[in-house]
């Protein structure tokens, strides 16, 4: 078996940290984030994203009436 080079080893460590998520997040936070994106709260999450676009003309775009 070939030994992993130092470069490959560092990249693998980085990859593992990336895939593990943010280490500051509590178990309750992890559970809620999963519910928001693929569970029972996903509909409400999408609605909140949509609401923000509607309420913010810069984000969602609007018609500029130069004569107003």
């Amino acid at each position: 078996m070939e030994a992993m080079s130092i470069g490959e080893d560092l990249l693998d460590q980085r990859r593992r940290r990336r895939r593990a998520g943010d280490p500051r997040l509590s178990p309750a936070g992890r559970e809620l984030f999963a519910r928001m994106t693929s569970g029972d709260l996903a509909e409400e999450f999408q609605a909140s994203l949509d609401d923000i676009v509607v309420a913010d003309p810069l984000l969602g775009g609007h018609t500029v009436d130069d004569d107003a």
Partner: protein
Amino acid sequence: MVVIDEYLAVRVLGGSWPKGLPDDELVLPASRHWRLLQRVHAPGGGQLSQLLAALPGGDLDVVRHPHPEVLQVLDPRPLLDDAAAIAAHYGAGGLLIAETLAAGLAQGRQLWFGSERNVGRALSRIADDLGIAVHVVT
């Protein structure tokens, strides 16, 4: 770098890596980070807002200041001119769509979403015209 949406950002911050998402550094357009921050700083009255408010103290810092090894927020400045050009050409005036498309164009002509609904018809149509592949992984 892989440009992702709010769904995938929240998922990977929570340690749930979607099957099919490329194993590369992930970036979130600034306008999409702004949308998440709006929900953090100006919560509504729904169940989700109540649950977010009840999380332990530092949990929302994960969204406010994402760990750079997990998720980076794209600097919007180098993208603004392309975004304005896209908005003007297609009549898609919103920064959210225009900046996302500019980011996708600059980062390998691909965009990754965690929900079909979050793509939207306008973005889908313009991405197709610009040759940007839109992927949805759930």
